[in-house]
């Protein structure tokens, strides 16, 4: 339970609030509820991650929820094409804060090797992404590694502020992972 005092939130450096932050972050990171937005081959790899031996429930993210209102981790697995782009945006908008996005695979991160009229060249054009996983398809260990990176990012979050997107704050802090 690595407790860090968040020095950039200058207004809230009290002892009690950082302990409460740490506890909230610990609870949040160990019980992520992923929404597998699986379209293509990466979805089959995600199914393997959920099964043994690459069990994802060791990290708490076992409970996949297909309703965006109940999920907090959007895992985009597979190619997104222009026909599916408005659907992805709508699903992302329906998720409540705090939410995180993992872009799994080459096709979701950059269009993969489908550089043509049908494929969106990277879902960063539609939704903000926290972690990109390269690979075609990525190994299940890579997906678990991405989950650990999301957990580290959650660790650094300050106490919840309502309705503010804190990604730019998290991005400014130098990477110490």
């Amino acid at each position, binding site marked *: 339970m690595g407790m860090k005092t968040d020095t950039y939130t200058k207004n809230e450096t009290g002892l009690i609030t950082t302990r409460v932050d740490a506890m909230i972050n610990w609870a949040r990171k160990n019980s992520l509820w992923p929404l*597998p*937005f*699986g*379209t*293509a*081959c990466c*979805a*089959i*790899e*995600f*199914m*393997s991650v959920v*099964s*043994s*031996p690459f069990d994802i429930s060791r990290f708490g993210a076992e409970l*996949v929820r*297909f309703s965006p209102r109940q999920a907090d981790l959007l895992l985009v*697995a*597979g*190619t997104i*094409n222009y*026909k*599916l782009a408005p*659907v992805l945006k709508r*699903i992302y908008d329906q998720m409540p804060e705090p939410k995180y996005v993992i872009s799994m695979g080459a096709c979701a991160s950059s269009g993969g*090797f*489908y*550089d*043509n*009229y*049908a*494929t969106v060249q990277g879902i960063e054009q539609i939704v903000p992404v926290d972690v990109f996983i390269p690979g*075609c*398809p990525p*190994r299940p260990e890579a997906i678990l590694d991405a989950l650990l990176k999301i957990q580290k990012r959650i660790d650094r979050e300050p106490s919840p502020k309502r309705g503010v997107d804190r990604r730019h704050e998290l991005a400014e802090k130098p990477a110490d992972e």
Partner: protein
Amino acid sequence: MTDKKPNLDDFVPKAGEAKGPYSAGDFSADLDYSGDAAADGTTLDDIDTQPMYINIGPTHPATHGTFRVYCKLDGERIKKAAVDIGYLHRGFEKIVEHRKYNQVIPYTDRLNYCSGLVNNIGFCKAVERMLGIEVPERTQVIRVILMEIQRIMDHMICVGANIVDIGALTNFWYFFNAREKLNDVLEALTGARLTYSYTRVGGLAWDLPEDFRERVKAALEGIPKAIRDVTGLIKKNRIFLDRSRGVGVIDAEKALSFGWTGPCLRATGYPMDLRKVRPYYHYDQFSFDVPIGANGDVYDRVFVRIAEMEESLRIIYQAIDNVPGGPINVDNKDIVLPAKDEVHNTMEGLINHFKLVIEGVKPPPGRIYDSIEAPNGELGFYIISDGTGQPYRIKVRPPCFYLMNTLKYLIEGAMVADIVAILAGLNIIAGELDR
């Protein structure tokens, strides 16, 4: 583990035995509510109802891919349905016009991604027929073994996901555990977990490792037990029988008119299997049976697939002990890359390698259509070559496309909960459906 013939009587219900509470006879949306009468004799016709429109998809549980079914409901019955596909359209047919033939092979992997090697082999078979070459015996037997392994893996995903949708989650883990062991063997062989790209035009990428036979046999040991576990759980399960017998019934003539092939057509009772009718790669020398259903409902589709898994096991056990020796690539320097020591040490090898990589394999100008029996049906490739190293046009004949065409007619008249069972029984892979 032995070469035991499966007892198909256990699997196949007698003809005419399964008629559900509603049978979609001629797909008319003229619904007969008389069977649904309440205790005082009123039916839904007596109530003034309005239709409700619901949307199923495109975000599904990540088992079947993205497509959308739009239904007009009256109560729980579906009066009209519309199917929308194309949410995984990746422009396969356009982009392969800008690649060489060997560069197309990774694209074919992602068509039916549950059985990538089958697509590779189908494509290479078509190009090799166009070139007029025949691959050596060793390659043919290896390709048969790999296709049957992939058939088992594809059926495991299909049946596992099918039963999960009906509500039984345990079978999924039984099948996936067994599938992981097979996947380990293929990963040791090809280097990749799902998108193998192991074949090349003219043969294979590299030869089998020495312990391949032992690894395959060790991996196959767990499969009969997994099949027994799963069938033991569902064969006499009241919930499974009620949800799958008499649901999504179609007869053979209509299925043929809709373009059905593969296990779904065999579940209607029509014995059509390309491995028996137009054998390729010495399939006529292996002894195996083709399981056939009786009624053409979801129950039959599930059990035809399970029985096909057992038949594939038989073929693999016959083939794995009799892999002939010899080269794995055709001996033709215009098609196959030369060996690395020739490339590095001789000028001719270097230039040959250079020309093959830069210009590619060049089939003579012409058109060809060739197909194989993929786990889902007949996967065909219609290739037009204009003499250069890039194909002029490749049209894929996807088996799921014609199965999905029928979905609208299968679910009109059924209940909402049946959509899931019928859809899963058809084994729709979106990568192949939309290309």
